[in-house]
């Protein structure tokens, strides 16, 4: 339902997004039936397609040509998909968006080859664009995203990490790819550098807000809404913002400390989720997300008014208030 609402916000882009959806299907076409099935399985599980949306919207601030824009929008979504299929191996996830993951449906090896295949398709596709700057930005982003994930594993189960560690991690994990989507959309549509910088920063702030909300929802949503048990981040040892805020209370701190890394029973898990949910942590985390959202909106104020600006603003508000 929420996803439908989000899609309504960018319904103006529907014809272009339908075209991109078709291109994505073509892009994962493979002579290997197995890779074809696994990639389509992933693709058909759906998604918000927020990265292509930001590429297209950023392009509206320059000389918008869908044939050029899709050369960036498609590979960025493919890169995101490739990372998801590998993330499911890392997290040992059985379901994603309510459907079995590639690793659950087949096995880890097939998930690895599927991710490699999709990533290679993305690079094959984007290297049609002969822009060294674009490739510098994207390759740097890819490396930073990986660094973020490596740090996330390093930081697992470390309850005493600080807020800066968390923010740096989510910047790499989520915000950078959204930021690059905006920047690359601006770049290929030939906007001036100032506009591109505002768009890049907008993407960064919105990406930060998006990830914080995601981390909040892990505690405030139901298992059904999430398609996985609430509190999964804590169970996996990922110390997210709600946990960092909740631990300030000594009693909650002890509860978290004593259960971190433990095989939790169902009542224990529900108790932890309820404790965090009922604490002030959710409101504190929301306030930090809101600050990023405001910064994103400030960036939009520097950009020319028009439909793209309006849609970006609506998406920003939606992200700040989304329920899952």
């Amino acid at each position, binding site marked *: 339902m929420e996803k439908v609402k989000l899609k309504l916000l960018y319904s103006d882009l529907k014809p272009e997004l339908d075209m991109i959806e078709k291109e994505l299907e073509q892009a994962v076409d493979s002579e290997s039936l197995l890779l074809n099935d696994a990639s389509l399985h992933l693709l058909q599980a759906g998604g918000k397609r927020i990265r292509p949306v930001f590429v297209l919207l950023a392009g509206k601030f320059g000389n918008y040509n869908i044939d050029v824009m899709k050369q960036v929008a498609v590979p960025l979504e493919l890169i995101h998909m490739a*990372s998801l299929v*590998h993330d499911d191996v*890392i997290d040992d996830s059985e379901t994603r968006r309510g459907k079995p993951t590639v690793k659950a449906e*087949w096995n880890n090896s097939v998930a690895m080859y599927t991710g490699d295949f999709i990533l*290679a398709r993305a690079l094959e596709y984007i290297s049609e664009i002969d822009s060294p700057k674009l490739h510098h930005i994207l390759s740097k982003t890819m490396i930073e995203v990986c660094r973020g994930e490596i740090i996330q*594993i390093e930081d697992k189960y470390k309850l005493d990490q600080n807020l800066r560690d968390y923010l740096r991690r989510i910047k790499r994990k989520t915000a950078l790819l959204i930021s690059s989507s905006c920047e690359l959309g601006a770049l290929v549509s030939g906007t001036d550098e100032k506009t591109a910088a505002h768009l890049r920063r907008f993407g960064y702030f919105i990406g930060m807000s998006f990830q914080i909300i995601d981390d909040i929802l892990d505690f405030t949503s139901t298992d059904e809404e999430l398609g996985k048990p609430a509190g999964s981040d804590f169970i996996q040892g990922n110390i997210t913002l709600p946990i960092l805020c909740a631990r300030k209370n000594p009693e909650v701190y002890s509860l978290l400390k004593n259960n971190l890394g433990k095989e939790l029973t169902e009542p224990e898990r529900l108790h932890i989720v309820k404790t965090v949910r009922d604490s002030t942590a959710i409101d504190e985390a929301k306030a930090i997300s809101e600050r990023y959202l405001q910064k994103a909106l400030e960036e939009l104020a520097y950009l020319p008014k028009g439909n793209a600006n309006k849609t970006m603003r609506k998406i920003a508000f939606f992200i700040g208030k989304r329920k899952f």
Partner: protein
Amino acid sequence: MNEQLIHSKITSMEIDVLRAVKQRTLEKFTEGPSVERARLFFLLLPYFDEKHWSGEIEASAKTVSIVYAALHAHDQVKENASATKKQQLTVLAGDFYSGIYYQMLANLNNITMIQRLATAIIKVSEKKASFHDGLDRTTAELDRSVQQIETELLATFYNFYGFDHYTPLATLMLSYIRYKDELECLQGGSETRIIRSLNETLQHPLHTERWLLEKLDNLHDQISLTINSYNFNYDLKNFMLHQITPHQHRAEQLTREG
């Protein structure tokens, strides 16, 4: 170029590649990047053979080596094992190395090579996946997949820089090395995807062992024949035959013994 100089050049390249992909956490918790000396040798073969060589070609050769390391890391992920820290970081190691190779080629402004290598990775991934699709395959089909997995990236590099004539020999020698490793695994009691597929096709591990031994003899004969069609100097040829693919005829021995 004598043996010592060849070794020294390979080592120097190995150090460069390892430096390019160095990452503290990955180094600590994973097996580290696989940079096989035999592969480095083939990437440097035009240089050893005194063909036109440049800093740009050598940098590209390094990126090919990094792609191999990326794909190899993902081969190490256990098929059905749960996510240990080592396994998690091995997944990320492969992705990290992929980012590095892309960045290196982007820094060289070699966008065409990015595309050509991406196409090669697609083919390699498709062939690797074929060992998991459960379809019946002949040994000839399996052999073709192994050849492509082992040489597609190298062949792409050769083709890009006009060194195609080395591809047939490299294909034979890299296949030889792969099958030799597979034989060692089989004889050591471990089962790889290739061995499993061969066992399924040939229906018994003993038949697989026999097939591998014959394959190695056959490849060796082809290597001996093919290598003479190149104008390699004595040292280089000697290095290839004795250091890269040293061989002992074993299929005949097995027949006599068994």
